[in-house]
């Protein structure tokens, strides 16, 4: 009981004191913090954001961090690293430029070949179009497709199937007999008749446009049947 009078308060003081005080830093901890501060300083310098005052000067808590202030800065090593990096960048750029030049050359050759092929294709297309897109003819005031023109329309359909990108305008024309306006309507009907026939041959009708010129664009201007029958026509024009 007598000893308790001193021991209990002493135990309490020791316990609370040990809880209130931070444990002292170990040598290892101090070394690490010093290194980190140093690294921070180097990085800031390399980034061009080097500080002009030591931020740890007034850090009374961690006096060891002052050692990190630009300590150990090796200018020669840093310059070499920068030169190496520049050289590496240049090498990469040079290689890329060389690759690009080679690719361009290859592409140009390919383009020339493609153009040649395209020209061949265009010539073939034009030849096929010239052969297939022939005028059809109609009877007076009629828009029915004539027996003898079916082969022509078959040819147009085959051309359209052979060249899926081709688009064609069907023109309807009339002879000079009859009124201008009625003939425009008749020309529209003739173009529509050709369109309907081509549709039955399996060609997508969205690839055709129709237009009527009535009697406004005759091929032949004389007032005789030879001329009139030439003018009563359907024309196929590439769009």
């Amino acid at each position: 009981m007598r000893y308790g009078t001193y021991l209990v308060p002493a135990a309490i003081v020791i316990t609370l004191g040990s809880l209130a005080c931070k444990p002292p830093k170990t040598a290892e901890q101090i070394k690490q913090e010093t290194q980190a501060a140093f690294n921070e300083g180097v990085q800031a310098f390399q980034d061009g954001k080097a500080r002009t005052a030591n931020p740890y000067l007034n850090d009374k808590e961690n006096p060891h961090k002052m050692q990190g202030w630009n300590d150990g800065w090796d200018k020669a090593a840093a310059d070499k690293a920068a030169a190496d990096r520049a050289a590496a960048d240049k090498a990469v750029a040079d290689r890329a430029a060389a690759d690009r030049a080679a690719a361009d050359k290859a592409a140009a050759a390919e383009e020339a070949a493609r153009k040649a092929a395209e020209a061949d294709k265009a010539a073939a297309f034009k030849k096929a179009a010239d052969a297939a897109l022939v005028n059809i003819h109609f009877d007076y005031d009629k828009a029915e497709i004539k027996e003898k023109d079916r082969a022509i329309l078959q040819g147009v359909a085959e051309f359209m199937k052979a060249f899926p990108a081709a688009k064609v305008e069907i023109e309807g024309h009339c002879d000079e007999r009859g009124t201008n306006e009625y003939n425009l309507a008749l020309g529209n009907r003739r173009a529509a008749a050709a369109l309907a026939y081509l549709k039955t041959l399996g060609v997508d009708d969205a690839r055709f446009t129709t237009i009527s010129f009535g009697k406004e664009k005759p091929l032949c201007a004389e007032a005789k049947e030879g001329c009139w029958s030439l003018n009563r026509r359907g024309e196929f024009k590439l769009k």
Partner: protein
Amino acid sequence: MPRFLVRIFLCALVASGLRAQQTEVVLTATSSAKLVLAMPAPKTSGLDAALVATEYSAVLQRDLDESGVIAVLQERLPAEGAAVKAWKEAGAQWLLSAKLTRAANGELQLEASALDTAAEKGVFNRTYHANKIVPLRYLAHYLADDLVGRLTGEKGVASSRIVFVRQTSPGVKELFQVDRDGAGLIQLTRYGSLTLSPSVASDGRLAYVTYKGGAPEIWGQRKKDGPHEKLYPVSGAGGMLTSPVWSPDGKRLAFVQGDRRGNSDIMVLDLGSLRARRLTDSNGINTEPSWNPNGNQIAFTSDREGGPQVFLMQDDGSNLRRLTSEGLYNASPAWSPNGAMIAYVSRFEGKFDLFVYKLGEGRAYQITTGVSTSESPAWSPDERRMVFTSNRFGSSQLFTTDLSGRQILRLSELAGCQSPRWIRGH
């Protein structure tokens, strides 16, 4: 009164049968129905006599002859300065005296008066002034119009113009206008492409079809004297478009739209709301709309019963009925300005001739009987004459005819003309 006179001409036509020889210009000044007017040479001051003879006297005489109601006395003329009685004995019913003056600043003045030779009292007196940009011949037109107006109650059409389509090179057609007497040719469009089917509203606004963008579009003027702009299609592609025709009030435009199945339909575009309404039901060709003067009926050509025939309907497409019954090809109807007649063309033995259907009588009269084709009739604003195209001298040219078909005049020697329209004003 005009209708009364028209009837007289048609009676004269029936009486003389169809023997009429068609020559280029047949100026008949002997019809008893016409008022005989004597027009001695005008007194002039400051003007060259030769100019007055060609630009005034000749113009006025032609205007009066073509009016169809006044005949100019040309034979057994009394001497210069003869008494009124002498003119009366020579056959003149009216004696016109005129005084033409050109002032120092170039302004023209025409003092005209007419005397009734029987009663020896004045029946007409008017003075015209014109600044120097107005041609002398226009003064003659104004005087002719007023003399006809004094006699019939309706102003003449000497000062009127024809708008028409003319081919300028193969595949290129443009709109032109020319005075009623063939003078003053003006080109109205320069698209370098097909431009067709002109229509002129009563206030002078044009509407027409042009292929300048490749596909046909309806262009025209929304405002009087305004710029030419696209009227239809409002957006996108319109297919086949022809025959825009202004309604008499100028607020609607009838036109024809064709579809890809070969049908064409009469449409009406409301210029206010830009809404287009279809009046016919896609059953073949329906084209060439022509409004009646009230704007509540439309005559048009349709082949719904076989060949082209003229039909009538209300402006909403109802009350459809066929007008023409004879012939296999009747087309191009033109409703007369007073509403009582419809002109059209009919094919007979391979040629086309003009006919006039009289709605009151329910029958048609043949106007032209030629070895050549006559097409595109359009009425004069006073309903006394029609302008049309004919190839009687080779290429298609403009002609006018009275309703008897006996007085056919070549309007101009321009070749390659089509679709004439006749309107008042220069």
